[in-house]
């Protein structure tokens, strides 16, 4: 059973699992019907915030539940309050239903590296056991931390159920729409003055594949999932051919409000802090214990995204290269076209 199937990653996972040889039946659950194909999976309508979800689990009697209904952007939920309700109350309802169910043998949760937060005191690389205290977090960071706390509580009460938590770095790719992807598509991208955060990415296909591995195989535990290598924000903008607009802060009501009201991008505090301080996670455990190797590195993920979504910016890379060749021709007195 895949919970949260109406959105891109949920639909892809349901479709992928339905095609898997060892899987008999895949049920996708969400409040609204998925707009994307979910392949051979069945759709069941249920509201995760109510006991609906419990009845759905009783009826379907799944042996594995994949919880993907944790929303990172408040715009997806229709505001911060519904976002929090879906994330926190939804998780509580779902886990309560799983706890009662006699059929559930495994729970997989799609969490996020946002649980680590980001700030000046963050170490360069977070390992799985380095989650800071919840007091320092707000907004989605707090949700992500609370969701995981409930999941830990659940695994204490039902030690017979295998629980896998996958903490994904920011997911990007040609198809998926997230707060970060819409940010990079802006014609001029606001950045924080004097800050050049570094970050990791996961390709949307790698994300689905990691979830598939966790669903089909038995790999209980908590794992960071991120592509190899890092990107600095300035570097990413240049790769996307987008000029950055340095602002003193992205978090001020003025800047944030203008960006939100003009419908450009809705940045919550977690995203603002991410774009100020950046974040890095250690993926050793992903390789050794989850036995998962992402196909796309961070840079390859960004390039795949940029190729599909950000062609033709002001500082398009081909344009910069053409200028570079011309300048080189002028300066060195050699014909640059041969290279």
């Amino acid at each position, binding site marked *: 059973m895949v919970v949260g199937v109406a959105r891109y990653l949920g639909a892809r996972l349901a479709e992928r699992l339905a095609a898997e040889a060892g899987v008999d039946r895949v049920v996708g659950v969400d409040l609204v019907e998925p707009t994307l194909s979910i392949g051979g999976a069945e759709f069941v309508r249920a509201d995760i915030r109510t006991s609906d979800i419990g009845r759905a689990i009783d009826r379907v009697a799944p042996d594995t539940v994949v919880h993907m209904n944790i929303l990172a952007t408040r715009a997806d939920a229709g505001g911060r309050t519904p976002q929090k309700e879906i994330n926190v109350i939804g998780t509580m309802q779902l886990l309560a239903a799983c706890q009662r169910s006699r059929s559930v043998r495994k729970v997989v949760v799609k969490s996020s590296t946002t649980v680590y937060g980001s700030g000046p005191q963050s170490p360069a690389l977070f390992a799985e056991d380095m989650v800071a205290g919840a007091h320092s977090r707000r907004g989605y960071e707090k949700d992500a931390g609370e969701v995981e706390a409930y999941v830990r509580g659940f695994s204490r009460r039902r030690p017979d159920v295998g629980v896998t938590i996958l903490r994904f770095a920011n997911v990007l790719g040609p198809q998926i729409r997230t707060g970060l992807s819409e940010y990079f598509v802006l014609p001029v991208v606001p950045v924080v003055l004097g800050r*050049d955060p570094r970050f990791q990415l996961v390709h949307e296909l790698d994300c689905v594949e990691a979830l598939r591995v966790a669903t089909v195989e038995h790999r209980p535990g908590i794992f960071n999932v991120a592509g190899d290598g890092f990107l600095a924000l300035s570097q990413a903008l240049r790769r996307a051919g987008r000029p950055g607009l340095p602002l003193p802060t992205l978090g001020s009501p003025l800047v944030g409000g203008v960006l939100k009201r003009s419908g450009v991008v809705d940045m919550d505090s977690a995203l603002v802090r991410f774009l100020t301080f950046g974040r890095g996670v250690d993926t050793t455990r992903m390789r050794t214990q989850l036995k998962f190797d992402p196909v796309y590195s961070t840079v390859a993920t960004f390039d795949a995204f940029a190729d599909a979504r950000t062609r033709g910016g002001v500082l398009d890379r081909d344009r910069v290269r053409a200028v570079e060749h011309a*300048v080189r021709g002028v300066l060195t*007195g050699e014909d640059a*076209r041969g290279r």
Partner: protein
Amino acid sequence: MADSPLPGLLDRVATAAGRALRDRLGVDGERLDHLVAFAGRRLTGEFEVDPFGFDPELTEAVLLPLLRPLYKHWFRVEVRGIENIPESGAALVAANHSGTLPVDSLMTQLAVHDTHPQARHLRALGATLVFQLPVVADLARKSGTTLACTEDVEALLGGGELVGVWPEGFKGVGKPFSQRYKLQRFGRGGFVSAALRTKAPIIPCSIVGAEEIYPMIGNAESLARLLGLPYFPLTPTFPWLGALGLVPLPSKWIIEFGEPIRTDDYPPGAADDPMVVFELTDQVRDTIQATLTELLELRGPAFG
């Protein structure tokens, strides 16, 4: 591009003009070529940063060359004992900290890079304050500095990097001029635990000269509290002369790297034994203090 004749013609004209210009001015074509290629790589984002945000290309091409005149002509830095830094593999350089602004760590980074046969990068550890400040945080990360916390130190040493630590922290860099060349307390010895855990040798490093660059004769404590800084320095020139007061005094510097102290022959668990940690910390501290005294005598007058 080759499809239409016009750009081809333009190209030829540009090429000819460029050749003529180059011959006239006598510029080195290869160096220009490198420069343009570098600018192109930077503008298209064709470079790499490591997990700590270190950007070797930018550091070597821009940041270190900016510091070099200060290093060579202003402070006339003399480096001793560079052979004590291993050719490769992990090592932890522990040095004294002074000078009101942490110029000494920048100079040590440059000293290691410019005099070591392998041109190694010293990965410095910085206080939280460094990473709170815009621009400074950014430049620090790009030049290979990371936060002084156990996780980062062990990750760097585990990766075989050369790490630099200034264990006195703010107590050292912000001490009054009257206390010059008197080592402050070395914290909890967290750097020693990290070295023990990763079995990396500790290289004591003594820096003479940094004490005189901004002699701190007073500390405006209430102003510091207001600004959230650990101290607000008053020197003979700052803040009285404004920005001019930020020009460091041209003292003569000597940086000496001492003999490595091995940490690989301790039993497992030594990193958590406070006795071992404090003993090693004191050993490092005493070595630096003794070398400082020797070097001071060797140097003679500070501005000679």
